[in-house]
């Protein structure tokens, strides 16, 4: 009975939200091979490139896949431009005229660098995706909003910092973020490494909202329970790894948690299909002390629960690791 309920809940959820598994009957292998084998040193012939990527594919989702994958495998994050933009935006924060002028100047530089050197920042990725979809005859749009990372946890609602896309397939909108799917950035070392993360392609909106808050809330593609901006800022911090393994993040529902000592806490996640994990651990940081603990794990269908007893008081950063990869961070304030 319980299993039947779990199944029903799952089934319903999969009907409600637009996600990659809607297309589980289509293999992306061919699109991925085309994306990998298509080369273009510069992007001055986007038309030709897009047609080469899509002409042998028959469904829109495969075409979008080839475009998305190609962008992620070929376009790097541009740190010099990112840093310069941050500096200028901060400098002209109070002067809208200067900011608008800078924005125009930046755009020229940005697109020229994108087409010539295949390097860009978020908005460039989003533009490129939209343009290539448009050439392939597929409707898509750019979504401006707030991307939440360890560096940026709180936002001024007037200053969005991130751009991603929504794409329309079979009359339904889907979310994707090419910037974050392309690889990992180390801004302080001015280094970018290509490392494709499939979790950002046609992502379940319920997971996506954890670190993507759109300027127009309807762009979250959530049918109900759209968090307010304030609630968004209090959600748990999730990382790229979470997109790899999770379909959804259920508990804790907030980043900051207060508990009484000697109580158990239940962490709960819904895993993607066919996810394998060998090692789950919680890493605790208190001041300069760091230690890791193995929680009690129960797994039913795709739902994984971790149970942990907090036996000592204190203020802890708690990081969730799966297979040595960081997935999420919470704060636990354990009171006497």
């Amino acid at each position, binding site marked *: 009975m319980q299993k039947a309920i779990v199944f029903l809940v799952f089934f319903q959820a999969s009907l409600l939200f637009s996600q990659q598994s809607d297309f589980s009957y289509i293999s992306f292998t061919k699109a991925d091979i085309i994306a990998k084998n298509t080369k273009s040193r510069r992007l*001055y012939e986007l*038309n*030709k490139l897009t047609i080469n990527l899509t002409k042998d594919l028959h469904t829109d989702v495969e075409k979008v896949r080839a475009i998305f994958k190609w962008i992620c495998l070929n376009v790097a994050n541009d740190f010099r431009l*990112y840093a310069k933009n941050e500096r200028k935006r901060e400098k002209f924060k109070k002067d809208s005229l200067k900011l608008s002028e800078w924005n125009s100047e930046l755009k020229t530089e*940005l697109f020229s660098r994108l087409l010539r050197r295949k390097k860009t*920042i978020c908005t460039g990725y989003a533009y490129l995706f939209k343009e290539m979809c448009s050439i392939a005859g597929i409707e898509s749009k750019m979504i*401006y909003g707030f991307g939440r990372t*360890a*560096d940026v946890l709180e936002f001024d609602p007037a200053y969005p910092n991130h751009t991603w896309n929504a794409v329309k397939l079979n009359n339904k909108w889907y979310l994707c973020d090419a*910037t974050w799917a392309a690889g990992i950035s180390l801004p302080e070392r001015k280094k970018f490494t290509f490392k494709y993360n499939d979790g950002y392609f046609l992502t379940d909106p319920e997971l996506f909202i954890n670190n993507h808050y759109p300027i127009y809330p309807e762009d979250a593609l959530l049918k109900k329970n759209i968090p307010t901006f304030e609630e968004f800022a209090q959600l748990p911090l999730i990382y790229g790894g979470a997109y790899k393994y999770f379909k959804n993040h259920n508990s804790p529902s907030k980043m900051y948690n207060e508990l009484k000592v000697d109580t158990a806490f239940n962490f709960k996640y819904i895993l993607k299909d066919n996810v394998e994990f060998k090692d789950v651990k919680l890493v605790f940081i208190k001041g300069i002390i760091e230690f890791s603990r193995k929680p009690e794990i129960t797994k039913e269908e795709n739902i994984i629960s971790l149970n942990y007893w907090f036996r000592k008081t204190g203020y802890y950063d708690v990081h969730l690791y799966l297979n040595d990869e960081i997935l999420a961070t919470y704060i636990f304030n354990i009171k006497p």
Partner: protein
Amino acid sequence: MKTTILTNNVKRNYLLVSFIFAIFFSVQNASAQKVTVKGVVKGKTELNTELLMGVNIYLKDKSAITTSNRKGEFTFPQELNVGDILVFSYLGFIKKEIKVTRNSTNLTVILQEDDNEMLGAPNTNKRFSSKKDRQ
């Protein structure tokens, strides 16, 4: 003037010929008249207007495409019919549609910069630390 010495008869013939020509041209216009579309594409930003290289130029039904060259110039690879719609699109600029006319042999297309802001939040796996916040 030449016309002043024309006889009434010739005048009548002249009118008839013009009439036939007019019909001929209007029929030609209504049916397919082929034009080789050429031109140059520029982008107008807040600060200046510059030639754009790599502009995507295509027939609205996507049956034929081309791209502007280093000097912003393009020659559409096939002759087009009067009335065909050409789309000009470039990153960061508002898409423009142009209806092909008989005079589309030397176009100057100016794309207007859109007003989107440029943003960037790099993806990091940097682990959060509340230490800073609490000091």
